[in-house]
Structure formats: C-alpha cells, structure tokens
C-alpha cells in the first residue's frame, strides 16, 4: 500500500513538473509583455521598459527564466519559498499568501457543503427513484449545471444580497409569505419522507403548522434583528444529533453507543456554561483547541463507555462532541448578530471577502466574514451539488441492483442496514474519485465567482497575471491548484483503502 501511494505520488510529481513547464511556456508566449509600454508616451518610457525587463528577466531565454522560477520553487522543500516577483517587482509569495487564504476558505467551505448536501440528496433520490421528489431534484440538478456561473452570481447579488439587506431593515413576514413558505416546505418534506397518502398528509400537516407558527413567532418578536439560540436549542439539537447518528449508523437498539453519545451531549452542555467566559472574546488558536478537545473528550467517552461496540461508540461520540462544540460556537456567534447589525446595518455587501476597516470584536468580525462568504459559496455549491447528487444517485442505484443487496435483504437485515452498510459504503467508492477530481477544478472555477464578487483571491492573481503576460503570478496559481490536485488524489487513494479492503494489501 505504502509503495503504491509513493509510486502514485512520484508520478503525480512528474506530471506537475511537466504541467508547470507547459503552462510557463504558453504564458510567456501568449502576448508581448511590453505591449503597453511600447505604446505609451511617457517621458521615462525607456527607463520603464528597462526596469520591467529586469524584473521579469526578459533579456534571458525562456529556459533560463523557467529554470530560475523552478529553483526558487524548489526551495519550498526547506520552507523557504521564492515564487519570484511580478512585473512591478512585488514578491509573489506575499501576494499568494493573502489570495490563497481567501480562495481556499471559499472553495473548502463550498466543497464540504456540496459533498454533504449532494450525497444526502443523492441517496434520498436513489431510494425514492421515480417519485415526484426524484424528478424535481433531477430537473433542478440539470438546471444548476446548465447555469452560467457569472450570470447566476449577478442574479444572486441582486435578489439574495440586496433584497436581504432591504428586508433586514424590517425583518417581518407577511401572512402570505408565511403561508407560501410553510406550504412549500410541507410539500417538500412529505415528498422526501414518502409513505402512503395518510402518512404524507400527516407529515405535511405537522410541518405546515410547525413552520407557520415558528415564522409567526420569529416575525412577532423581530427575532432576525436580535436572534438567540440559547441553551434549550443547543440541548435539543445535540440530543437529536446523538439519537439520529446512533440510529442511522448502529441502530437505536445499541444501548452502549446511545448512552455514550448522550453522555457526550451532557458533557457538552456542562462545558457550554463552563467555557462561556473563555469564548466571549476568543482567539482562533483557543477556539480550534477547544474544538479538538471536544472531539477528543467525545472519543474518550465513547471509548470507555462503548464496551462491545467500542469503535463505533468512539467515532460517533467524537462526532457528537464536535457537533456540540460547533453548536456552542454558533450560539455565541448568533447572539452577537444584534451588535454586528449596529456596526454594519446592511449585513451583506456584495463586493470583497471582508469589509475593509471593520472594527468589531472577534464574533462580529467572524459574522462579517461569514456574511461576505455566503453568496459566493452558494454559487459554487449549487454547481457542485448538482453533479454530486447525480453521481451519488447513479452510483447508489448501480449498487442497489447488485446481488449482495438482494442477499442482505433476504437474510432479514433491516432496510437501514442494507442502505447504510451494504449500499452506501460501496457507492462511496466512485463518489470519492469525483470529489477528488472536482476540488482542483473548483479552485479553477472559482476564478469567475471571485471576479463577480470582487474578491482579491487567486482568480484575480491568475487573471491579472495572464492579462499582463506575467508568468510568476500565473505559476503561483498553478502551484496551488496542482498541489491541491495531488493532495486530493492522495486522500482519495487513502479513502479507497479505507472503503475497499481489497486495495489495502
């Protein structure tokens, strides 16, 4: 296995090297880098030309320039990268640092969301093949990946961003809005859960009443200006996560796992109060440390209470522990919404990855970054979700038609075990390939999303670099996408080994 992975890494490294040579040569030959200066009438034209020639090494042949770039990059092995300078002499490494952090933040968030939503929806549509729900999701998926990215981005800016800001001035629902939203949600939920018409009617009715009353309440107390989740919400969602994950992965009857996840929820609720003072004004290291701690504590609780099913108990308890930590953080962030609104009355501005000169506490700044990332994330997620849903659906249908699924059903296993353990686990193998391939492509695709939303990300680095025939920024962009592609393929190889025991040998 190790040998296999090493060989794959070696091959990808060579491909990356070849790709860098190809891209470098293509970029420097795409146009004349001195075009704008040759046409300019500036007095110091000769000086400017000479200066740029020096910065870009234009007096040297292409292979010397490429070699210079390559030796600079090879210093990355000793953590001392030299990515060269752009045509104005600015160090590309420092440019890349800022650009990569905002782009990766966007792409990683979109990928994670797309994987979770895409896989869940894909499985649901596969289980309910040829239902109204299946047809609607299929249509929406086709619609989403037929959308021109920049077009939908401009629409979102107008209809989601600006209209939301307007609505936020007086965040109430009219009766018509309440009725329509509740009806739509009731229809969707009853279609997803399925069953005979009686059960569907019951689902729809309960959803209708619940959504309508919740919206009326939120509207009446102006919840959206001064939102609060509170202890009760954290407790209910935590318990739901514990019971739900236990039921889904090991079955409700497995008391050991159930009790250990519930104990984790209890520990999480205790620390909800215990750490309140610490996370009122935290720093990133503190928050990340607390998150890791909650994973570890959850894992330990599962490990010691798990008994005969120690491993699933530890894994699920760690998951529940992480959920509790995220819920506590979300509760904290939401409670700062009111003070955030007073700092920034129109919460979503459609340009930039954060508000310049924003002065607020930790949570206010987090909300600011969050408000800025929502719209581009939606754009990127929509497109990926569409393809993940389709792939999961077809991969799930392929697996569910196999003989071993029939065997599993005929020996009396419950439908949950058949779908989750026999079906889903095998369906995950092809999905892993798609996700690994998609990630690097998504960074490339983010070029357009970033342009529409005015982010100073890697897309801008690449686009400006190419427009000005400046190879070093373009190559920095390629370095990040190429490395991401190799890393994701490595992760995919490891995931195969975890999913398919035949590969582990």
């Amino acid at each position, binding site marked *: 296995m190790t040998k296999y992975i090493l060989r794959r890494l070696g*091959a*990808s490294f*060579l*491909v*990356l090297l*070849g*790709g860098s040579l*190809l*891209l470098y040569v*293509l*970029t420097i*030959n*795409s*146009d004349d880098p001195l075009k704008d200066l040759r046409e300019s009438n500036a007095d110091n034209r000769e000086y400017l030309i000479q200066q740029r020639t020096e910065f870009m090494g234009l007096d040297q042949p292409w292979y010397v320039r490429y070699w210079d770039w390559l030796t600079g990059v090879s210093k990355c092995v000793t953590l001392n990268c030299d990515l060269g300078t752009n045509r104005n002499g600015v160090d590309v490494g420092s440019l890349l640092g800022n650009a990569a952090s905002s782009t990766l933040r966007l792409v990683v968030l979109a990928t994670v969301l797309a994987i979770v939503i895409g896989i869940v929806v894909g499985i649901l549509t596969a289980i309910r*093949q*040829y239902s109204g729900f299946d047809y609607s999701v299929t249509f929406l998926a*086709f*619609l989403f*990946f*037929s*959308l*021109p*990215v*920049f*077009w939908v981005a*401009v629409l979102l800016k*107008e209809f989601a961003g600006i209209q939301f800001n307007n609505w936020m001035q007086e965040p109430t629902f009219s009766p018509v809005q309440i009725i329509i939203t509740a009806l739509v949600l009731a229809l969707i939920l009853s279609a997803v859960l399925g069953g005979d018409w009686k059960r569907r009617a019951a689902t729809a009715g309960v959803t209708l009443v619940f959504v309508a009353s919740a919206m009326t309440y939120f509207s009446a107390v102006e919840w959206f200006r001064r939102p609060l989740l509170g202890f009760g919400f954290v407790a209910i969602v935590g318990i739901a996560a514990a019971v739900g994950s236990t039921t889904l992965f090991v079955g409700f009857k497995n008391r050991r796992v159930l009790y250990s996840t519930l104990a984790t929820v209890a520990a999480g609720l205790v620390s909800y109060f215990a750490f309140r003072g610490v996370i009122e004004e935290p720093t990133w290291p503190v928050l990340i440390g607390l998150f890791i701690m909650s994973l570890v504590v959850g894992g330990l609780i599962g490990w010691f209470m798990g008994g005969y099913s120690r491993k699933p108990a530890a894994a699920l308890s760690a998951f529940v522990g992480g959920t509790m930590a995220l819920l506590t953080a979300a509760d904290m962030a939401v409670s700062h919404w009111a003070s955030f609104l007073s700092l920034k009355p129109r919460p979503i501005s459609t340009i930039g990855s954060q508000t310049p000169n924003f002065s607020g506490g930790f949570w206010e700044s987090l909300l600011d970054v969050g408000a800025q990332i929502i719209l581009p994330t939606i754009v990127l997620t929509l497109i990926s979700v569409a393809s993940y849903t389709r792939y999961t659906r*077809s991969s799930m*249908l*392929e697996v569910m*038609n196999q003989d071993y699924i029939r065997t599993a059903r005929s020996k009396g296993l419950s439908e949950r075990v058949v779908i989750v353990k026999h079906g889903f686990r095998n369906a995950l193998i092809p999905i892993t390939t798609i996700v690994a391939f998609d990630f*690097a*492509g998504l*960074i*490339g*695709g983010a*070029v*357009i999303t970033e*342009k529409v939303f005015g982010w100073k990300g890697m897309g801008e680095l*690449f*686009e400006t670099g*190419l*427009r000005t025939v400046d190879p070093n920024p*373009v190559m920095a*962009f*390629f370095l990040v*996408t*190429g490395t991401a*592609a190799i890393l994701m393929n490595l992760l995919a190889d490891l995931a195969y080994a975890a999913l398919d025991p035949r590969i582990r040998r």
Partner: protein
Amino acid sequence: MSNSQTPGSDSYSIEAEIPANTKTYSQGQLVFRRFVRHKGAMASLIVLLFITLTAITSIGVGPLPGWWDKDYTRATAVLDGGRPTIGFFSLGEHPFGQDTIGKDYFALVMRGTQISLLVAVTVGVLSTIIGTIIGAVAGYMRGWIESILMRLTDLVIVIPLLALAAVIAKAASDQGVFVLALVLAIVTWTGLARLVRGEVLSLREREFVAAARAVGTSPARIIFKHILPNTIGVIIVSATLSIASAILLETSLSYLGFGVQSPDVSLGLLISQYQNAFLTRPWLFWFPGIMILLIALSINFIGDGLRDAFDPRQNRSKD
C-alpha cells in the same frame, strides 16, 4: 434441451425461436425507441431545434439574408428607452429591446447564439474525435504508447481547465471563432479519452477481438471496425455533454475577456458587456443568460435521454 437446438449447430436458428407475429428490433431501433419515449429529451430536442433554426434563419448566415430586417451591427434611434416589445403573440419593433447605443438586441442575441452554437458544436465534434482516438489507441496498444498518451492526458488534466483554455485562447486571440473552438477542443478531450480507454481495455480481451487478430487484421481496423462500434454509446453521450460544457466554457472565457473578441459577439460576451446595466436595463442581462441556460439545459437533457437509451440498466424495465 435437445442437442439440435444448441447454438452453433447447423439446424439452429434464432428466428425459429421467435413467434412469427412478433416484431423484432435491431439494437439501433431499440435505442431509438427508448430515446423517443424519454419525454424530457424529446421536449429538449424540440426546444434546441427551435432555437437553432431561429438563430440561423432570423438574421441569416454570411451573405444569405434572414427574415429579420434589422442588423446586429447597425444602431438606430432608441425607442421607449430601449425596452423589449415582445408580447405573447407579437414581436413588435424590437422584441428583446435595444442596447445602450440603439442596436437591435434581438439581432445581437441571435448572432451571439449562432456563434456560441457554432463554437460548441465544433468543440464537441473535435474533442470527441481527439479523445476517442487517443483513448482507443492507448487502450488497445498498451505498453509505452499507452504510457505516453496517458501521461499526456494527465498533463492536460493537472492544469485547471479554465486556466489552460484562457492561456491558450489569449495566445490565439484575434484569430476568429474557429481558432477559439480549436483551442477549446485541445483542452476538453481528456475525460472522454479516459472513458474510452477504460472501455477498450475490457473489450480488447474479448473473443471477437482475439478472432480478428488471429486472422491477421491490422490494429487500425480492429480499433475502428471491431472495438469502437461497441463503445458508441459512451462516445455519443459524452459528445453531447461536452457540447453543453463547451457552451458554458466559451461563455466563461468570453466573460473573462479571453474568448470571443468584440466586434464579434457571443452570449457570454453580451452578458459581460452589460452586467452593470442590470439595474437600469435588465433585459440586456436576461435574454442572453436565458438563451445560454435554455441551450445548455436542453443539451444536458438530450444527453441524459441518450444515456438512458444506450444504457438502460438503471431504469425500471419497460421493454
């Protein structure tokens, strides 16, 4: 079962097994029947044909005049703020309105549709040919030829599609739309090459290929006459979908400014030119976008219908 009925013996005939009054279908007929029954695909086919015909006949092609009397290059006086005049049963003077300087927007959008469709179809055909040949040769020849071809594929894949397309398109800008289409084809064949190679790898081990080889058939003839016809489903579906993605890729490139260059128009270029007019003249933004959406959506649905027709394993059995 008696010995005389086993396949291969002289007296056996499959026709004798089928009742005389049953109609039989060839593989192609079965695929066609399944495709025609796919409602979404048929509706999409009609929409796509309608759009294509409208785009071609309205403003004409080259020297041939069309039925629409306005030209996409000539500006006239702006009427009623350039608002669109299209109604349910009438087109009016300027159905899609006028742009900021008074050009007829219907003619502009039709011209953009022509260019976008032209680019997309060219890309679809070219990239399918390149991908099929490279994948088939790599899969059939194995050895060092396969290594070289597949490393070449990896090389193209490792550079993000949009980035590679943008770089080559910039180098080849001002050369017209056919060069642009060629550039897009050069970067989009990789997925199909991998698919075809996978198919060929399994097909080349089959008996009919061994038989062909045994009688001394040349590799080229085996690949094109014996193996590729068996992968036609994969190729056709992939070609259809590559047309849809080529439309979107071309619009993205034109949006970034590396694709179709002004004064020529494409749908992506129209949107990027008028995206700031969204609040004042929203129709300049809506019509080209909806056109792209309609074309890409209908091609995707046709591809889905073709996939179901060629590979009905995932469908509830209907035949």
